[in-house]
């Protein structure tokens, strides 16, 4: 009886203190259950973006004979990246090390126990959240070489790429010891690490593998735009985890990140739709969702830094730029980036990274430029981040592909490509209607 009363009294004092002193309400050991709950959810949302979101988005756009191959590639990438992440890639990305890459200190999740914290959330949750980014970035690249890459070569490429391209670049931008982080580059959720990175790798792959047989004269109609529409919706919803989760907290920054994500996406989708309506006479479903994804990719680096005004500009600009990149520039230059990874993610991401440097400014409703940093200087830093990524990712991706091409060959034979990857690589058919 005595114990019960004193427990209640203590609880009452605790509550009173919690009401009066901000920050007192967190658990004594630093873990914030609100942050943790949101980050657990965000992690699930981002994984949802890859399987099934991106998987469906891409699958609907390829020809029927290759519909399964794309989904299989995305799903397998999820599995393979998971294993590698646990083994050593997390360590390379977020371990201590140099300014350019982490060390193997966290390999096999060393030091990550049930109670280990990373800020206010368990490190296991941070680990998982970041894993979902290391899954979707390679999965995006699939669009560049769709319908013609050997499954085995794809597996090798992804395993090597995540290790020597993704992990270092993630380290540069998001690890406190990373050199771009030190320079103050603004990339809230992965404009550089995910979109420019994947966009460049996809472009290089599209060029190294070469065009699909019959491109661009033969019609290569999407086999199921219904899947693409569904996938696009899943990407949009999942992106709330991607962007609003990148603050690693459940707070106002996340809330605003969610808002600006929504604004940019809607603005970009409408921009692409109206452009297409004007130029072709009718708005298309594929155009609408392509615009949406462009807006999503563009707002990604800026999502924690800009306000609604900035989001509108980023959305409209990326809608415009990506439309021209995909519809005009790609046709003019002639490369076969089959699912427009570069045109949408590469170009969209670049625009977002640049404009983040502009619209972070206070006067545009942003979070405010860093102490002593001018807008010109910030934009300059953004450019350095973009340039370094383009060069490093471009060169290293090229090397990996060339080596693989010489060792096992990257592309299926002409005959196999004609028959379709589903049968040739997997002995299956997507639809048996």
């Amino acid at each position: 009886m005595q114990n019960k009363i004193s427990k209640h009294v203590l609880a009452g004092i605790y509550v009173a203190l919690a009401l009066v002193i901000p920050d007192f309400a967190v658990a004594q050991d630093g873990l914030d259950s609100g942050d943790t709950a949101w980050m657990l959810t965000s992690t699930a949302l981002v994984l949802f973006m890859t399987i099934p979101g991106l998987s469906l988005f891409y699958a609907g756009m390829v020809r029927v004979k290759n519909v399964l191959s794309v989904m299989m590639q995305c799903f397998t990438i999820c599995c393979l990246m998971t294993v590698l992440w646990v083994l050593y890639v997390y360590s390379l990305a977020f371990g201590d090390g140099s300014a350019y890459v982490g060390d193997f200190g966290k390999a096999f999740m060393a030091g990550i126990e049930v109670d280990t914290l990373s800020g206010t959330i368990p490190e296991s949750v941070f680990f998982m959240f970041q894993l979902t980014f290391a899954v979707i970035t390679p999965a995006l690249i699939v669009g560049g070489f769709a319908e013609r890459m050997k499954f085995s070569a794809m597996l090798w490429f992804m395993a090597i790429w995540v290790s020597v391209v993704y992990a270092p670049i993630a380290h540069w931008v998001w690890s406190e010891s990373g050199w771009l982080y030190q320079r103050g580059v603004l990339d809230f959720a992965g404009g550089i690490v995910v979109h420019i990175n994947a966009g460049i790798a996809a472009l290089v792959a599209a060029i190294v593998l070469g065009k699909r047989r019959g491109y661009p004269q033969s019609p290569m109609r999407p086999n199921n735009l219904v899947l693409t529409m569904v996938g696009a919706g899943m990407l949009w919803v999942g992106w709330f985890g991607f962007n609003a989760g990148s603050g690693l907290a459940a707070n106002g920054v996340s809330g605003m990140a969610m808002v600006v994500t929504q604004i940019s996406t809607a603005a970009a989708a409408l921009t692409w739709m109206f452009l297409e309506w004007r130029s072709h006479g009718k708005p298309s479903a594929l155009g609408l969702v392509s615009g949406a994804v462009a807006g999503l990719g563009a707002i990604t680096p800026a999502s924690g830094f800009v306000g609604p005004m900035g989001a509108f500009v980023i959305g409209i600009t990326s809608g415009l730029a990506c439309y021209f990149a995909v519809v005009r520039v790609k046709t003019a230059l002639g490369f076969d980036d089959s699912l427009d990874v570069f045109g949408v993610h590469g170009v969209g991401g670049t625009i977002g990274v640049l404009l983040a440097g502009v619209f972070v400014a206070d006067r545009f409703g942003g979070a405010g430029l860093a102490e002593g940093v001018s807008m010109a200087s910030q934009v300059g830093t953004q450019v350095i981040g973009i340039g370094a990524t383009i060069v490093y990712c471009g060169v290293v991706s090229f090397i990996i592909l060339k080596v693989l091409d010489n060792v096992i060959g990257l592309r299926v034979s002409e005959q196999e490509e004609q028959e379709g990857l589903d049968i040739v690589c997997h002995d299956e058919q997507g639809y048996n209607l």
Partner: protein
Amino acid sequence: MKLITAVIKPFKLEDVRQVLGEAGVQGMTVTEVKGFGRQKGHTELYRGAEYAVDFVPKTKIEVAVSDEVMEQAIEAIVGAAGTGSIGDGKVFVSDLLQAVRIRTGETGDQAL
């Protein structure tokens, strides 16, 4: 016996089935096909890539009829399937050498 093959606009199938029934033709086989004659197809657009699609979806009906019923059947089809616009379709008639009802083994007009 004659085999009448008619390629018609898909939405006309129900009408044709009805008038054929009234003309005494009870069975038919229907296939979904695509084709073109003078009807133009359409253009499809996918992220800036325009494709001309020449083939138009149509429905093909095949009915086996006795010589006596042939004229009636053709008239019924043409009447029901026509809309007056390009793309209404065509009717082809060929000689049918033999017909057999599988269940009973009946042949010739008995099998129709």
